[in-house]
């Protein structure tokens, strides 16, 4: 590990990323461009989140990494091992004990605290891209607060499915100003975007960083007659019995028996302990 600087990235790079993070915190939801570096892992493996994590880590940190709520997937294990090696930081699977949590596609069930940082891996940072592929135009729309198109997307959803069918990456208005894509978290997690913790979003391939400061107002977009709902599968976790956590449906045996279990493995384990 001596061949790397602490947390892999060199100090000037970390400084550049920290500047982008601070700018992101100063303008909640605004996508700050940054010069994404090559990381020793392919895009799609959270290179944006990894760079944000690297820029935030200090030796005293205790790092948790989750993928779809689980600490034990290949992606989560690799990133955790990576930072244990290049930063020598302590790691944990316990949400309560972590000082920095890097996540792909979930927000932990256990409420976060003001001394924690949540880092999201973001594949597509631009919420307007679905209907407006031109980057010059989407930037102008953000600058001028022209967000009618976001509601066109939701309108299309209702017209086609009878209800807002967007169940992941559900767009939200941050601090009454910028609409952001919260990364592909289930919309069940959207209410948790209003959090005491610092939330940082890193998109490596697209070279964007954005942020939600603690206790910032985050409103999921909707219509008066089709209000936002933080929906999830009806049922209870087969392991811990939880009915209020986000549940994954899994095939339990060769006979095709289906059952639910908490997507947040730490939350489930804590309930069973």
């Amino acid at each position: 590990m001596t061949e790397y600087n602490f947390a892999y990235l060199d100090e000037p790079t970390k400084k550049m990323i920290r500047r982008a993070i601070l700018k992101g915190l100063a303008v909640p939801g605004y996508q700050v461009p940054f010069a994404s570096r090559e990381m020793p892992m392919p895009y799609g493996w959270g290179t944006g989140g990894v760079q944000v994590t690297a820029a935030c880590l200090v030796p005293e940190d205790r790092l948790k990494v989750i993928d779809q709520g689980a600490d034990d997937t290949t992606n989560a294990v690799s990133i955790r091992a990576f930072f244990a090696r290049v930063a020598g930081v302590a790691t944990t699977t316990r949400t309560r004990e972590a000082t920095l949590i890097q996540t792909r596609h979930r927000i932990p069930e256990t409420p976060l605290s003001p001394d924690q940082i949540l880092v999201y891996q973001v594949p597509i940072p631009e919420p307007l891209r679905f209907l407006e592929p031109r980057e010059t135009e989407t930037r102008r729309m953000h600058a001028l607060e022209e967000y009618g198109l976001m509601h066109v997307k939701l309108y299309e959803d209702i017209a086609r499915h009878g209800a807002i069918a967007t169940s992941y990456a559900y767009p939200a208005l941050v601090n009454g100003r910028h609409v952001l894509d919260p990364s592909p978290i289930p919309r069940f997690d959207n209410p948790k975007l209003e959090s005491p913790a610092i939330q940082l979003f890193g998109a490596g391939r697209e070279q964007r960083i954005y942020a939600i400061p603690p206790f910032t107002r985050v409103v999921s977009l909707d219509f008066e007659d089709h209000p936002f709902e933080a929906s999830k599968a009806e049922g209870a976790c087969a392991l811990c019995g939880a009915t209020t956590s986000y549940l994954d449906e899994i095939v339990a045996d060769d006979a095709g028996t289906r059952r639910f279990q908490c997507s947040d493995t730490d939350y489930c384990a804590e309930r069973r302990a």
Partner: protein
Amino acid sequence: MNAETMSEAPLLSVRGLTKRYGGRIGCAEVDLDLWPGEVLGIVGESGSGKSTLLACLAGHLEADGGTARYDGRDVLTLPEPERRRLARTDWAFVHQHARDGLRMNVSAGGNVGERLMAGGARHYGDIRATAEDWLARVEIDPARIDDRPSQFSGGMQQRLQIARGLVTGPRLVLMDEPTGGLDVSVQARLLDLLRGLVRRMGLAAIVVTHDIGVVRLLADRLMVMKDGRVVEAGLTDRVLDDPQHGYTQLLVSSVLPT
């Protein structure tokens, strides 16, 4: 126009509008006044500057000189946020090619509803009801509200584009060859529809076309452009029945290439 409308101030007043493309003139020193509820036709062959003039007014091109006062403000120097707000509320633009004015991957209802949602409409049922009403007004079966424009004929796409623009009740509509590329029978139906909408809504409109038949049917007044300049202007009937300029005489006798 009656005496009452004549007594009002012009809705749009253009003076000395000039646009150059390098050393070449796009349009030069164009003056025009448009009163509320009036339709102004601009005719000329391609390269005459008529589309350049329209594009400058719409903000699609930046003019090199002149003023265009609308509601007492020069729209040519309006800050971009205000210009865009104007463009999606009080003005509408009808493109020659419907695909330039429509979102082809969004349903007809979403296309018509976009300007409402951009203006803050947040009730799905109301937006949909308004979209259905507008589809009917442009003679599209409201049952097709969830179809995409790609499933529509060229004439329907053009009518959908008109509904998308008029849904916010604009006062000024800019049209660039609105019937271009359509079959003759489809053109006639579209012109009838446009004439009815313009009259009923009291719209002011500028219609740019090379088609004398279009302006004969739609326009109260006519401007003839050649090589970037206005060569003749007047009441449509007068200009068409008694053209003064030699070029207009050629244009009316339809010997010019389009």
